[in-house]
Each structure stands twice: as structure tokens, then as C-alpha cells.
């Protein structure tokens, strides 16, 4: 764990390339003890970041995956009344001890834990519009009570809260006000080289160039419904390496297109480009001035 001026600090890990501003945002959230809200294109590493923050800080990670049916109260605790009813009918448990039927949710567990933990609330926008509002008090005061057992759970140490959103729904203002916000931008070429190097350290330089040229060219094509993402690029390179495809082949072809494009229309659109004998770019110069190095 890095300590600096009494603060716990995050600096990225060997396997996660974080940009300077992202590191600053994480540290800002740490210092101010506010939730960090992360947004960005799919595949830019929002969810993965939480694991690496936990690793770098030496704290356990608790993940709360949000689904459309998730209720805020489930994050705190669930009172398993059906089990208790069942036990009472068949006499299989000690029904008088309600505590046995109270199960802490992810948020409740991080509060109750003895050491500071990292809590990831993943894809918060999947849930109901009111969901974030229902958590405001708990996140502010870091405490909640369980009326069934007259217990109060108070966080011994405020957990580090990371929240990811895919922008499917707008989040309520009151929730946003309490967050530190970071938008993960799509990595530029230099950063992408470092990211790829983490996953494929011994990649041939010529092959890497060709792969990146094709990848950024694909992303520039306006007709694509879904742009390929970083994780898809990494998968694509794995496939190329496994099949032993060389840089020369990629100069004129895009093999294993299926690992980059996931929509039928997109594959069709590129197929048409192929049959119209459109030429794929071979060098960074072909991609235009934005990519001149």
C-alpha cells in the first residue's frame, strides 16, 4: 500500500495502464471519501479498474452487479422470510432467532467488515431510476439499521466505492452531486501500445503496427453500429497469434473479423467495402493527419 501524506494513494498496477487524470480522479475520491463514478465506452476497463484499485491498495474487493431487478435494500441486507416460514412449517431450524435469516448484501458486508474494502457497484444504470437515490443516506452516513433485529450496522472504515455506468439511464442529480466523476476516454495509439504490451509482451513490432492501423481504421468507419473496443482488440491479437497469422497477411486482409465486429450489419458493411475493392490502409499515413507520428 502506498502512503503519501497520510493518504492512501493509487498509482495503477503493472497490468492496468491508467492515464494520469484517471489516477488523479481515483486519488481524489480516496482522499475525499466520495464514490467515484466511472463512465466511458464499453471495453475501456471501467469494471476491471476496481480490481486493480483493490490490488494496489491491498484491500479486498466486493462486487455488486446491478441488474434491472436489483433493489437498493438488497445491497444492505435481505430478510429471508420464505426460509423462515418454511422452517417454521417443517420444524427444521431455530425460527425464534431472526438473525439467522438476515443476510447482509454487498454494501452491508463492506460496512460490517473489520478492514477497509473496495466496493464496486457495477452498471448502476441497469437498475430502476430511483435506485441511486435509495442509497444516498447509506453512502453519506455509512450506516443503516436492521429493524427486524434492532441492530445498527455502522461502517468501521468507509469503503472505497467505485460506481460504473454505461449511460443507459440518466442518474439522479442528488446522487451525481456526491460523486467524483471520471470519463474514461478511448485510449490513443501510444496508450494502446502500452495496453497491448501488457497482454502480449513479445509482439512483433510490425505486426502490432498493422493490427493497430486496421483497428483504428475500423473505429473511424462511421457506418459501423458498434465500434470494436480495447478488449476486442486484445482478443483479436490472441486469435491472430494462435493461428500464426503474419504482418504481411494483415496488411491486405482483416482475418477473424468476428472477434472485432459483433453485429451482422457491420460485417455486411465491411464485406461490401471488400467487394467494392476498397483498399485497407497499410500505414499510419493512410489513416490521415490525426495519426501522423
Amino acid at each position, binding site marked *: 500500500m502506498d502512503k503519501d501524506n497520510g493518504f492512501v494513494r493509487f498509482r495503477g498496477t503493472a497490468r492496468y495502464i491508467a492515464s*494520469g*487524470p484517471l489516477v*488523479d*480522479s481515483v486519488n481524489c475520491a480516496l*482522499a475525499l471519501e466520495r464514490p467515484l463514478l466511472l463512465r466511458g465506452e464499453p471495453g475501456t476497463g471501467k469494471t476491471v479498474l476496481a480490481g486493480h484499485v483493490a490490488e494496489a491498495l491491498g484491500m479486498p474487493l466486493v462486487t455488486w452487479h446491478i441488474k434491472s431487478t436489483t433493489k437498493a435494500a438488497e445491497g444492505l441486507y435481505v430478510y429471508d422470510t420464505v426460509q423462515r*416460514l418454511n422452517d*417454521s*412449517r417443517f420444524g427444521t431450524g431455530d425460527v425464534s432467532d431472526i438473525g439467522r435469516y438476515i443476510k447482509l448484501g454487498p454494501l452491508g458486508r463492506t460496512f460490517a467488515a473489520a478492514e477497509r474494502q473496495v466496493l464496486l457497484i457495477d452498471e448502476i444504470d441497469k437498475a430502476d*431510476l430511483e435506485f441511486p437515490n435509495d442509497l444516498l443516506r447509506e453512502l453519506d452516513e455509512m450506516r443503516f439499521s436492521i429493524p427486524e433485529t434492532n441492530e445498527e450496522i455502522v461502517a468501521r472504515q468507509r469503503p472505497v466505492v467505485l460506481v460504473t455506468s454505461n449511460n443507459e439511464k440518466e442518474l439522479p442529480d442528488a446522487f451525481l452531486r456526491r460523486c467524483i*466523476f471520471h470519463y474514461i476516454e478511448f485510449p490513443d495509439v501510444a496508450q494502446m501500445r502500452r495496453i497491448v504490451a501488457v497482454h502480449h509482451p513479445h509482439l512483433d513490432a510490425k505486426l502490432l503496427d498493422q493490427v493497430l492501423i486496421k483497428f483504428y481504421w475500423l473505429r473511424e468507419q462511421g457506418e459501423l453500429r458498434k465500434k470494436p473496443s480495447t478488449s476486442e482488440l486484445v482478443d483479436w491479437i490472441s486469435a491472430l497469434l494462435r493461428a500464426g497469422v503474419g504482418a504481411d497477411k494483415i496488411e491486405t486482409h482483416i482475418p477473424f473479423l468476428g472477434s472485432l465486429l459483433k453485429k451482422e450489419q457491420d460485417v455486411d458493411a465491411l464485406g461490401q467495402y471488400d467487394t467494392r475493392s476498397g483498399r485497407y490502409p497499410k500505414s499510419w499515413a493512410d489513416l490521415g493527419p490525426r495519426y501522423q507520428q
Partner: protein
Amino acid sequence: MFLDLFYGLREAGVPVSIHEWGTFLRALEEGLHGSNLLRFYHLGRACLVKSETYFDAYDRVFARVFRGVEGALGDAITEELLEWLRDPKNFQALTPEQLAMLERLSTDELMRRFIETLGEQTERHDGGDRWVGTGGRSPFGHGGQHPTGIRVGGPGRNRSAMKVAEERRFDAYRTDVRLDARNLRLALRRMRQLTRSGPSTELDVDGTIDATCRNGGEIELLFRPPRRNDVRVLLLMDVGGTMAPFHRPVSELLTALHEERSLRDLTAYYFHNCVYDAVYSSVRMQRGDAVPTADLLRRFDGRWKVMLVGDAAMHPAELLEPYGGIDPRATSPTPGIVWLHRIAGHFERAVWINPEDADDWDSYHTSRVIRRLFPMYHLSVDGLAEAVTALVGGRRPGHAVEPHS
């Protein structure tokens, strides 16, 4: 000057609250910006701006507010200065009285003096109470004891914040000018009022448990109607000639509305410039498609949410005179304005969505008249979000419609 950022952002339409400003000030007091304008830029953005759609506005305001400061904050923090600060002298211990004597500066004042001081300083300085240095009582520098001080230090700069701000890379994320069906759908998703109605098909778990307990443990199942969206939208669209340039934004709106599956009902009718005795169920507007507007008011009760889409720009006679309609198929003895009044009076909530730039609305007489009847919103993601709030949100005072005889 520092507060200019706050008010500049609010003026530019970024919803910054005092709460967030307080967070930002706390972050500055913690010294999280290091000594570097670029990190200051990112820190401000992380604390104050909560959506990438406002990043462009932030860039514009930041560039304007801090343009003059760039020299002082960006470049004057030379390696030399950082060097001094990396080597803090053992500063003399201050008595509590001395600490109390130090003026407690407001953060705005603090920031201004920080910048000024950086501009003035030309030599190494230790132990004073004004300039940046180590071990002193000045609010600036390293290892000092000023209660509201700013800490200078940290890793070197890489890029100028001003350059980052002026690049304006987030232009494409703005929602006040740009729109596509996905973003519009996002705005429309707020259009909901959940109610329980219809057949009881959902198991009421809490109720069942309660009833079972009351029943002495014999299981009794209770059912209730599922919750669903009760919002029904009546869309009235202008397909007149002046709407032709807005074909793309209007069709994006239609796509978004049709894809918004959570709406209980969506019905669209078409008109030419203004609503008269009849509206049409198809864009072709042929005689067979005509539906008397009076029938419309009978068939759709007042709880339907009405969205009128049009540029509200026409010859005044088309709106105000009998037989004013320019379409020969749509002659009508009742002036359009009367029908608009009836619509505004019949439905509890109705809005007018205008694809024309809001700045141009006042240049048409008819648009000014119509705005007195319906709250008007621009056809953009932000405008639509406001319109949705007007349709389903809490009722706002000040938009009463007077009956028209």
C-alpha cells in the same frame, strides 16, 4: 477570479451546485491538484462536471477564465521552484497564538494570491510569510503551517492545461446541439408514471406472507396487478414544407419514440403548418386519412400527453384567420388558433417541440403567439428532457391556459 469558474460554468448551463463546489475546495485544500494547472483542470472537471456532455462547456469556460493565468501557473512553476520545495527546511514550530493570528483566507483570495505570488517570485525563499517557499507561514508552499494553505509540489507537468482545454475534444458529446435516436431515447426514458392496473397476475410476496401469518401458517396466496407505465403520448406533427430541412432530427425523434417500449400507448397524427378541423393519420395526408380534430378531443381523454412537433412558423393569417390554411384539402372555417386553444385546454399536459434554433423563435409572430399557449422546447436531447419533465414531472406554476371562446 476563481469564482468566475463557478459562475461561468453555471452560465454555460453546467449544473454545478454549492455542494460540488465545496467538494472542489476541499480537494484543493488537500492539495490534490499538485502544483500544476493541468491536474487542476482535471481535478476541477472530476469534482464539478458529472457528465461528459458538459466537458465541452467546461473546456470553453476553463479556457476563458484561466487564459491570463497560464503563464503564472503553467510555466512559472519551473523545475527550480519545485526543487526548492522538495527540500523542506525544518520549519520553526508556531505557537497556537501565531497560528490563530495568521489570517484565515477565503479560498478564492488564497487562489488569487497564489497566482500573484508565483508571478512575483524570482529567487529562492525560506522562512518568510509572503512568498512561496519552505518552512514559512505563507499559505503557499511545502511544510508550512497556514490553516487553509495550498500545497505546492508533486510530479512535473506534461501538457499545458490550456492546450487541453482549447483542443475541445468533447465537442461531439454535447447534447444541446447534437442528437441521435439513442440519446433521445435516454431523454424519453423519464417519461413514465408507474401505476397498478389491469388483471391481478403478480404474486404479492409481502401480502402473501402477511396473510399466511394471519392464517396461522396455512399458506394463502395473494395476487395483484403488475406495475406498469401509464404514460400515453399523442403526437401531432407538422409535415409542412418549412419542416423539410428538419427531416432528419424529426425522424430521429420518431424512431426514439417508437423504440421507447415502456410507453403505454403512442399515437401520431399529422397536420400542415397548423391544426385545423381535421388531422391526418398518415403522412400522405389524403382525404381518406382525415380525422376530425373534434373527434380527437373526444377520443383521447385529458390524461394523454400531447407533443406537438413543428416550427410554429407560418403566415399570421394561417394561424389567426378563418379559412386560413394554405392546404386546399384542409379548408376550415375555424381558425387554427382556436383549435390550438382547445387542445391546450383539453389536455392536462401539452408541449410544443420546435426543431428551429431557440434564438429564432421570436422572429416569427406565429411562434410568439403559440408560445403563449404551449411551453416550447427545442428539438435536442436537452430540450426533449425538459419537455418530458413538463409532461410527467411535478406541475410547474405559471402556465395556465385561458379558455378561448
